[in-house]
């Protein structure tokens, strides 16, 4: 039993430390993938793909750092293949994601920054009108019509603004 300052965590006996480490990491792998595909169904498929590919190749005596690095390298590769397949283009032409120096997550989503921090940072760098459209549409779940009403614009104009805002967000980069 490990006692922390604010709460105590009961740790149950484990059968295989490497196995348990890998399974604990899969929760982070899932979060990492979900943050990049934006939907549960694709995130689940890719997480399963990563687990089935990486876990049999792990050494039983592998440490946490190497298990993490291998799982996340496999996840990055699976994501690249996913986007290449979905878009019908070679992986080499996909935008390059810069991996964190640790090769895995520190905060659970692939870097020391959470997905919220990344999105907040990207939005903060956009012009106010772009930021407003993306906040309303994605973070508050407004429909195009509702965004148009809120911003005193037309649906057509918001649609164009959404495309331009997403292009601008991509240019800022989520992984810088």
């Amino acid at each position, binding site marked *: 039993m490990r006692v922390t300052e604010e*709460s105590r965590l009961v740790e149950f006996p484990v059968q295989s430390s490497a196995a348990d480490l890998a399974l604990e990491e899969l929760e982070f792998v899932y979060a990492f993938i979900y943050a990049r595909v934006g939907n549960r169904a694709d995130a689940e498929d890719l997480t*399963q793909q990563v687990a089935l590919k990486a876990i049999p190749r792990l050494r039983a005596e592998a440490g946490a750092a190497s298990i993490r690095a291998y799982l996340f390298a496999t996840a990055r590769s699976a994501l690249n293949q996913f986007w290449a397949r979905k878009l019908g283009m070679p992986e080499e032409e996909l935008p390059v994601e810069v991996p964190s120096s640790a090769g895995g997550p520190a905060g659970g989503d692939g870097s020391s920054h959470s997905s919220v921090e990344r999105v907040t940072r990207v939005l903060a760098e956009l012009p106010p009108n772009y930021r407003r459209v993306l906040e309303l549409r994605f973070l508050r779940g407004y429909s195009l019509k509702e965004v148009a009403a809120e911003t005193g614009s037309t649906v057509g104009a918001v649609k164009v603004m959404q495309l331009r805002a997403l292009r601008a967000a991509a240019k800022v980069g989520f992984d810088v």
Partner: protein
Amino acid sequence: MSEGFEKRLEQIVRELLAGRRLRLRPKDASEREAIMAAARLAAAREPYARMSPAFRRRLAARLAAESARPDGAASGSITRRRALWAGVTAAAGALGGVGLTRWGDQLAGSYAESRPATLGVPAGVVDPHPGRWFDAGALADLPEGQAVRIQAGAVGAFLFRKGDTVRGMSSICTHLPCELSWQAKGALLVCPCHNRAFDSSGESAEADGYPLPTLPQVQVLVVDGRVQVLGA
């Protein structure tokens, strides 16, 4: 930069925001950066995404099925890699709530006796299927008036002892699925995502603003001085 793509992009965004799979076409490739940015933003609505219990169970079952497959030359002998698989599937079974008889012997001693889940569980109570009772330690080790965080397989819970009885409640906030933490000062379970809090009975502890739903209770038994928690 492709002109007139805004209509197609809106279709993709709408599907993403509805939680559907990405369905893309080769001609979408010209705006891949914008589409990938849309996926990032759609994901931000669930900042602390966790695998669903149903997916954990499916994953555990799939890992178990894979580990049971003969692997060529290694078949018939326990290789190091195969031994790792065994551990993975056993642990995955605990995570996913899947009974894995193949590794049953290896699990013996790791977990408390398996019992059927309670029937007729009222609303607001975590009722995992199939449930499994996890040993959370001795009652005597639980301090009074302080939350103790335990993990019963896939179920995370805080335990509160009052005399000889123990109450358990979910460790996940009822607003967004964020992990709560116990703050002894104030005796509150605090959600780090939105600075909301629950008292030791699981009730929303907001003086103003909208109250959050009460934390679901986790089933707890005290048997022969040992605390057992129903997890999956």
